[in-house]
């Protein structure tokens, strides 16, 4: 089953007097349950592609399909609903809400989804345990290490079991040990829930965990490699 399909995506940014092609006729198909890396140097178009897939940014032309539904022409509110229910995001800079504890950060999205308090507590406890944060539920982001914060962000992204998780440079701010721990969590979740992971990175170590690596340059896909993960 196809989780993501991109057809002939183009996106051009204007920077000063110059037009920069962030996506240049990109077509791509990602199967459900994939563990895929988008690899490109800075400015290569991986974040733009990730944003287009996540409905955060509309392409200038082309089509984006998520789980068989075309999303590139949806309204803002429909896109928000899609992200809330079907897509989980993990960012480079953790981006937790600083005034909420780890548990509350995880629960916040579930509450907007309309889950009951009891269900929220049950799920947040389970997922925080799963990402190795048992005992740290009541700590605020400022009281946790970068790796711990990133694991809270991952817990927040996957607590509702979205079909697709999009991660933008998730290990960029982590040391190698924390990176490995995080990636093992990703792999475990991918195996356990059959969640599709699309990770934008230029970190070779991350690519080592992926079963498919798509290389981009100047907004174009230049290589698409299937591989055995480490």
């Amino acid at each position, binding site marked *: 089953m196809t989780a993501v399909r991109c057809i002939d995506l183009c996106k051009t940014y204007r920077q000063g007097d110059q037009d920069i092609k962030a996506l240049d006729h990109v077509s791509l198909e990602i199967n459900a349950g994939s563990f895929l890396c988008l690899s490109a140097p800075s400015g290569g178009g991986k974040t733009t592609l990730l944003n287009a897939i996540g409905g955060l940014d509309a392409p200038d032309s082309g089509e984006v399909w998520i789980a068989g539904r075309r999303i590139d022409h949806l309204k803002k509110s429909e896109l928000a609903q*899609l992200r809330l229910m079907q897509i989980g995001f993990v*960012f480079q800079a953790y981006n937790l809400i600083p*005034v909420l504890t780890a548990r509350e950060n995880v629960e916040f999205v579930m509450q*907007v989804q309309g889950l009951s308090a009891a269900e929220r507590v049950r799920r947040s406890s389970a997922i925080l345990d799963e990402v190795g944060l048992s005992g740290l539920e009541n700590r605020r982001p400022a009281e946790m290490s970068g790796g711990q914060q990133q694991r809270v962000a991952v817990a927040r*992204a996957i607590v509702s079991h979205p079909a697709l998780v999009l991660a933008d440079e998730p290990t960029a701010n982590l040391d190698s040990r924390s990176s490995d721990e995080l990636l093992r969590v990703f792999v475990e979740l991918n195996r356990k829930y059959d969640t599709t992971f699309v990770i934008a990175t230029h970190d070779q170590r991350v690519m080592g965990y992926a079963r498919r690596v798509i290389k981009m340059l100047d907004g174009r896909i230049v290589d698409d490699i299937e591989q055995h993960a480490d």
Partner: protein
Amino acid sequence: MNVTVLLAWRNLWRHPRRTWLTLGAMVFSNVLLVFMISLQFGMYRLMIENTLLTFTGHLQVQAEGYNDNKKMRQIVPDIQALSTRLREKLTLNTVSPRAMAFVLASSKDRTYGIQVLGVDPEHEPLVSSIPGLVEDGRYLQASDTAEVFIGRVLARNLRINVGDELTLLGSGRDGSLAAAVVVVAGIFESGVTDLDRSIAEIPLTFFQDTFFMRGAGHQIVITTPDLSLVNKTVAAVDSILPKDEGLVTLDWNVLQPGLKQAIQADISSAFFMYGVLVVLVAFSVLNTQLMSVLERTHEFGIVMALGISPGHLGRLVMLETAMMGTIGLFAGAFLGGLVTLWFSYNGFSYPGMEDMAANFNLPSRFYPQVTVLAMFLGPLVVFLFTVLSALYPALRLNWLHPVAAMRAA
């Protein structure tokens, strides 16, 4: 606990100093509003009661048109009987008949134009404070015939005192000459120069004989136990009055239009000042919430990426503001109530107040009244404007683009 409520509460205290400053402005303005409105309402009530109980009463029965053009011929027939009936039907003793004429009052060597009132000595003290303002002598009694009760300034102008004679010269109801010689029974001093200079009271029966009234009078003055009962009493009186005699019941608004206008003018200017105060507070809140939204642009971008809609974020900002407004409302109302309570026992005065107060026959110290309305009217308006002022920052989130927002520092 609801995470959104928790988030809103904690967001409020991200910058405690800023929140306290905004809250401080809110509480200060609320305290000021509670005190000023309490003082104002208390003052108006005192003005109304003092003015009406001095002379006018809360309502009057008159012949139609008499209030606009006070002609001797426009009468309330058989006024004593009608007054008695009203007392019985209303089960209210504070009903007193009056007759009124403009006369020349002459002492041995001086003459002044004055208003002479024929009053019921038994009931007049129940509807007017003038009988209680005796400075010399005494007030009129039921057994009196040709006695008069005059103001201190008039006595001074005519150079007469208690026991002296005064000649009254005017026109009777039928247009004929009416004249009488009366003896000064007492002198009053109200502090209102106009009253003390131009009013003289004589017994109603003597007035009716002197001015050929044939049992008629001009006004039946009624006071109610409370100002709030006036409308109800007007309706009751209307239903009692004979339908074919052209009589009307007028409330104090019609009888004393100047008083109402003075209050309305004062309310307008005061509420303009309150409006300025409220707008200043609203701008302070707008500034705080706009700052709060702007500095969280990146964070809003992130949660929008997670699927939280701009509407939800807008509601979060409104909730934060409503929480701040609620604290301001209750703290302001409570502290304002305390301040007002203190002044309600100790009184309030300021330089120049004595002169102003004297114009309305008021005391030189005011005692504000703590009422629920006065305690919450101002703070509720501040709360409303506080919440309204957060609309712009909240609506602004609708134009926020998640990618652009996440790029914000």
